Structure formats: C-alpha cells, structure tokens
C-alpha cells in the first residue's frame, strides 16, 4: 500500500464507522420521544457546524444565529402551511433567505470591529424576535405556525426515524463538505483572518470576499437547521425563539472547542447528554450553561476537543518521520522585476520616516538596505510592499505604480515579503503554512474543494508536493509536519521565506531575516538567498548584519533618519566616513583620525 493511501485509510475508516453508527442509532433506540430528541440534536449540530466555521475558525463572534434559525424555521412553516409549497422547495427557500440575511450581516462585519459586529447580531436577534410577533399577518403572531408537514421522499413520508436519518444525513454531508473546505486554502485563510490578517494579505487573500462567503455558508446552514427544526416540531411559536436561543449555539461550540473540526459534535453530544442526566435541575439549566461557558472561556478555551487532543498527545507519541536531508533542490526560474523608487517621502505625525528616497534595483539583483535603528528601513519596505502609502514620490515595480494598487493585488502580482517577526499561522504545521502561500495561484474552485472532486484533490497533492520541494530548498524538509508553535525562531524564518517563494515571486522583500539566527543558520540563509537570486527573483534585504549584507549584495543603500546617505558597492559604502560616523559616532571618527 502506498504511503498516501495508508495515510488516508485511518480517517476514511473513521468516517465510515461514524456514518454507520448514525444510521444504526434510531434502530437501537425504542422510544419515539428519544428519536425526536436525537433529531433535535442533529438540528443543533447542523447549526453549530456553521457557527463554528464563522466564530471558531474565522473569529467572528455572532450572537444572532438563533435569529437565522428562526428565519429558516418560519420560512419553511409559512411556505408549506400557508402556501402549500412542497417541503424541498420550502427548505431551499429557508436556506436562501437565511443566506441572504447572512450576506446582509456580512456587510457591517467589514466596516466594524468584532464587538460592534457582535452587538449588531444581538440587535438583529432582538429585532427578528420582535418582528415575529409583530408581523402576525405573515407569521401568525403568538399562535404560531401549526401542522407543519413532514418531508416526503419517493412517496414515503419521513418522520420519526426517517426524519432523523434525513437530518443526520444532512449533518453528515455538511460535515464532509466543511472538512474539505477547512483542509483547503479556505481553512487556512479563516485561521489567518482570525490570528494574523497580515499573513493573509501578504499571500493575496481578499479578506472581504472570504468573510462574505463564510457568512453565507454559516447562515445557510442555520437556515436549513431552522427548516428541520420546524418540521421536527410540527409547530413553531415565538416562544421557541427567545434571545437566549443564540446563546445555546455559542455555548455548544465553545463547549466542544472553538475552531476544531469535531468540536460541534462533541459540544452537541455533551449539551444533550447533560440535561438527560440532570432533569431535576432543569430550571437552572441556563444558569448552569452560562457558568460553564464562563469557566470554559477562562480556564479551558479549547473546550472538549482541546481536552481530547491533549489526552491523545499524551498517549500517542507519534514517531516523527525525518526525511534525510536531500541536497538542495533547484527552483524554477522566473523573470525578476525592476524596482524604481523616485523621491519617496513618508511622515508619521512629527517624525519624517522617509525623506526623498530614490533607488533603482535591477531585475535579479540583491539590494541591501542598511542603517541604524529608526532610520526608516522598515518603512521603506512597507512602502514598497504597499502597506503604507507614501506621502509623495513614485514607486514602480516594472510597470505597476505601487501607490495605486492594494497590498493584496501586489501579492498576487508576485511581490512577496517576509516580516521582522515571522508571521505564520500559529496552530498549523510548517508545511501547511507554506501551502498557504499558494493561495492566489490555486485553481480549484470552492465547489470542487467542497465536494472533494478529484481535480481539487489532485491540485491539493500538487501544492503539497510544491511546498515540500520549497521546504527542501530552504532546508526545512525534516520539519514539515512540525507545528509552528514548536518550531524554533530560525525554522520559522525559513518557513516564512519558503511561503513567500510559492508561486515564484518576481520581487522578494526580506525584513531583517538574520535577526536571532545562529552562525550555522546564517550560512544556510546566505546560500538560500543566493539561490533565490540565481533563479531570477529580484531581492531587497533590510538588515543590520553588515557582514551578511556585504557578502550577499552587489549594491547597498545606507539610510539614516529617512534619507539615503550613500549607495554603492559594499567596499565603498563601508569605508565611507559619513557612513562610519552614522554607525560609530563622529567623535570616534575624529579620534581615529588623530
């Protein structure tokens, strides 16, 4: 059996077992009431799954999902009871209407910070609750919608067990789709949006578009959940949908573990088992849940999934496969870009960070930028990569005027950078972080990934291979599966460089790559940078380590207090008295000359 398929056998088997268990569950259970509860649990799971993607992965706290479920439920109820629509058409309506509401909610999410947004969702929930009772010509007000029909498939009415299988089946399918999406570049994007938005923009993510998509997905699932809720209950009234409805879903995902794939399942199971065990405390249910939520957030925010992961790690020390270091591989060549800066200035308040800076870097060259701390080196890099707009002057990368395009567009055009402190996605492995660099060049569509189509899987494999090749190139192949949190500083640096190399950048900007590296690591860095330049990429390095720069760069620009002090080959620049004075101090020079 090949390595690849043996790696997949474990999870595939688990999924088959899970599917069979779900199917068998209602056959084991005798009581109709318990089956009804199980269906409720499946509905809860569906909604929690969607909310987890939004809140757990993307980090957008929504306290309004209860309202989306309400909308889905009423859409189904009204469509089937008042207008005689068939179940499936009505359910589609639920999904669509809820999805549209999700889209509407996404718009404020762009402009507002997280807690503003959370309150908007809270307000939304309150408004929906109020409107449900108000618009009684539509919603039947307090009497609610009754006699909601069950779905029918191939002439058979699905109720009891049949309904459970339908809902659980939908949940199962949704899980698979979610899993496929999370494992792809979209999952990484969500984590990046939550933990390190700069990382996302540096690889070309359009954060806005991704957020909108996430909202719609999460909302549509809630809507479908609402539809199932309505048909399972048969009757829905405004009392079913209080303000605290949304809190339940939040509790479930926090309990299960925010941002973990199996969190919603664990949370739903715990949520449903607990009341079973504490029927005598039914009245205090909400209070107990709230206390639990508070304790979880403070003490154990990773929830049940985190707990299980901790235990798994204790009992299962996986032998890390160490690939014997292959010789440094080649990377495909590329046409390097030409960078021209003309009279660029930038002010921050009263401080002139850049004043009238001009320089030209020819394609394929390595340019060093040096200067004392606070001289404006990093601002220079930020201005070239589009993170700051210059107050005056022009910056051209080939024919693109940097001032007129966004950072994201630049990243997509092959301008990549690293940061002073490596910006990686903390909970992922090194190779997953490197694969993230392919974001803007990946072809597989959202749908192909969601459905796990062969084309998407093929591309994922190709991207993984590419990432592996780049890791071999920078010498990190042995640590591909190491989690970023456990990687050393030097390894993180190289990983960030490898990520920047995905998609063959034309211009690579390195911000103090040598900081914190040991002597051997410095040697490794030197040869990597040389090899990158040899493949054609134009490189600009901001550095303090003068020996490294002198070794690597044909030309060096010295900046001091925002101005270009000197530019030229290392031998000339480092012998220049003015440059020496900047670094050493005028008095020292005077003493030297005595």
């Amino acid at each position, binding site marked *: 059996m090949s390595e690849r398929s043996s790696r997949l056998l474990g999870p595939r088997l688990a999924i088959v077992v899970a599917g069979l268990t779900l199917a068998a569950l209602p056959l084991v259970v005798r009581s109709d009431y318990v089956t009804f509860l199980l269906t409720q649990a499946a509905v809860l799971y569906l909604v929690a799954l969607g909310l987890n993607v939004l809140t757990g992965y993307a980090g957008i706290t929504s306290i309004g999902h209860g309202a989306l479920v309400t909308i889905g439920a009423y859409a189904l109820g009204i469509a089937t009871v008042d207008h005689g629509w068939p179940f499936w058409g009505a359910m589609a309506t639920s999904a669509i209407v809820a999805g549209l509401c999700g889209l509407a909610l996404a718009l404020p999410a762009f402009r507002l910070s997280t807690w503003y947004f959370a309150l908007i969702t809270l307000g939304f929930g309150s408004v929906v609750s109020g409107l449900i009772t108000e618009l009684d010509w539509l919603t039947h007000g307090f009497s609610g919608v009754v006699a909601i029909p069950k779905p029918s498939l191939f002439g058979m009415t699905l109720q009891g067990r049949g309904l459970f299988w339908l809902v659980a089946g939908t949940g199962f399918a949704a899980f698979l789709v979610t899993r496929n999406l999370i494992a792809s570049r979209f999952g990484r994007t969500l984590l990046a949006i939550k933990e390190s938005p700069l990382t996302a923009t540096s690889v070309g993510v359009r954060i806005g578009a991704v957020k909108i998509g996430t909202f719609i997905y999460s909302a549509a699932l809630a809507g479908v959940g609402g539809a199932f809720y309505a048909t399972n209950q048969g009757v829905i009234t405004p009392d079913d949908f209080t303000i605290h409805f949304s809190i339940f879903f939040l509790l479930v995902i926090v309990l299960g573990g925010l941002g973990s794939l199996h969190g919603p399942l664990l949370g739903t199971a715990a949520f449903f088992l607990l009341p079973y065990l504490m029927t005598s405390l039914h009245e205090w249910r909400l209070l107990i849940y709230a206390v639990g939520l508070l304790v979880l957030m403070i003490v154990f925010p990773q929830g049940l999934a985190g707990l299980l992961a901790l235990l798994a790690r204790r009992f299962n020390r996986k032998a890390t496969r160490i690939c014997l270091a292959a010789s440094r591989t080649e990377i495909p060549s590329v046409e390097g870009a030409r960078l021209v800066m003309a009279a660029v200035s930038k002010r921050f308040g009263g401080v002139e960070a850049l004043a009238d800076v001009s320089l030209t870097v020819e394609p394929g060259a390595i340019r060093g930028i040096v200067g004392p701390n606070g*001289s404006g080196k990093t601002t220079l890099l930020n201005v070239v990569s589009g993170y700051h707009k210059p107050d005056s002057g022009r910056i051209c990368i080939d024919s693109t005027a940097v001032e007129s395009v966004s950072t994201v567009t630049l990243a997509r055009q092959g301008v990549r950078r690293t940061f002073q402190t490596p910006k990686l996605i903390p909970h992922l492995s090194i190779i997953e972080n490197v694969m993230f660099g392919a974001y803007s060049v990946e072809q597989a569509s959202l749908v192909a990934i969601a459905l796990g189509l062969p084309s998407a899987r093929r591309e994922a494999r190709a991207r993984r291979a590419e990432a592996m090749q780049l890791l071999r190139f920078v010498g990190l192949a042995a640590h591909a599966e190491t989690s970023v949190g456990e990687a050393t500083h030097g390894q993180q640096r190289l990983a960030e460089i490898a990520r920047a190399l995905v998609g063959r950048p034309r211009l690579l900007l390195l911000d103090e790559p040598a900081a914190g590296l040991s002597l051997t690591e410095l040697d490794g860095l030197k040869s990597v940078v040389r090899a990158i330049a040899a493949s054609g990429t134009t490189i600009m390095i901001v550095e303090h380590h003068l020996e490294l720069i002198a070794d690597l760069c044909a030309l060096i620009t010295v900046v001091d207090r925002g101005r270009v002090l000197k530019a030229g080959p290392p031998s000339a620049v480092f012998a220049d008295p003015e440059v020496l004075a900047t670094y*050493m101090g005028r008095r020292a020079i005077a003493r030297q000359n005595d």
Partner: protein
Amino acid sequence: MALLEVTNLSAGYGRIPVLDRVSLSVDRGQIVAVVGANGAGKSTLLKTISGLLCPLNGEVNLAGKSIGGAQPHHIVAEGLLHVAEGRRLFRSQTVAENLDLALIGAGLTRADERRRLVDVHALFPVLVEKAHLPAGALSGGQQQMLAIGQALMRAPKILMLDEPSLGLAPIIVDEVFDVLTTLRARGAAILLVEQLVERALDIADHAYVMVSGRMSGDGPAASLRDSDLVRRAYSGG
C-alpha cells in the same frame, strides 16, 4: 554594595529563554553601558529589571531591596525608571500633560511637583516652548527629551534608557548624551543600552557586552573601546 545589583538573571517570553544568567551592577554617579547586536537580549534585560517581564531565575536588588518579580509600578515607586525603546509617550496628550502624568502616585506636595517641573524644564528648554502641543507632533529628538523628562519628574535613584539614540541626528544624540553626563555629575546612576557602541563607550564608565542572551564580558569602558569582544558582538556573530 552597588545601587543596582543584578545577579544571574534569566528571563524570556513563554518558555523560550532570552536572558541566560546575566549579572551586572550600577553605582551612584556611574553610567554603565550594555552593548550588543540586535536580538542579543538587551531590551529584554531592561524589561525584566523594570518588571515588565517576569524573571525565571535570579535576583534584582535596588539599594539592597529585592525588586525581582515586583510589579512595574511598585518598581517605579522604589525609584527605578525605565525609558523604553521607541520613545513610548502618550501621543494624544500634550507635552505638559505627559510630564504631569509622570507624577501619578508619587505623593508629592504641589510645591515639590512644581520644583520638579522647573528642573526638567531647565534640562530640556524645548519642552517649555512645546508645552501645549500633542506629544505626537514633536520631532524624534524632542520626543526623546520628553521621554527622559518624564522619567526625571520622579527624581529616580537609577535611570535606565533603551537605545535613546534611535533615529536621532548625531547632533541631537550629542545633546541627549550631554544630559546624561550632567545627570551623572549630579550623582545619578544610569544604565544605558545602546546600539551606537562607540558613543556609548564614550560616556560610560563601565560596559557590559551581551551576545545571544549572555554576558560575554565586561570592563572599564576605555579598555573595551577597541577590543575584539565588542567588534565581534557588534557584527552580529
């Protein structure tokens, strides 16, 4: 016994140690410099002494009293003031407000407060002119003066500065260092972390060299000036 005694201090971020058993001492009327490359741990050292970071091991004693692990505002009350890297001022407040804020919790009489302000104004006349401008509107050099002025409002027993020359013109650096020598003449104790090695060694009495979180050596500033120790540490290896 020295005014500030640091013994075998280890500290770091999370579980990654950045400082490894570092020792130094500073006396009254003395400027002690700590030099080394970027990433050597100089800033971490100052942050651990001033309480922003918790030490993993070791001791810090100020005038015989142990302050290792104490809360930063208590350490300020004990008379150790840390002027942080990058001139951390309250940019939205005016120069006068920034200076005034530095007196919080000092428990001085109105007269004493006025006297302190006069002293600081005497050292940094530019702060009088710009008193009503927001701190963010000052130039780099003026901001550095303000930051030091803030610390001096507390009449510290010992003053620690993290790279005061950052982004300043040599002339302004001259002015700042002149202030430091004046303070030394008045009996102050100063711990200076600097990237401009020669400058620092010019005004320092004693100097320590840090490499990768450890002290690689120390000695009278004059003798360190042309030493291998400094050259190696500085070129980052």
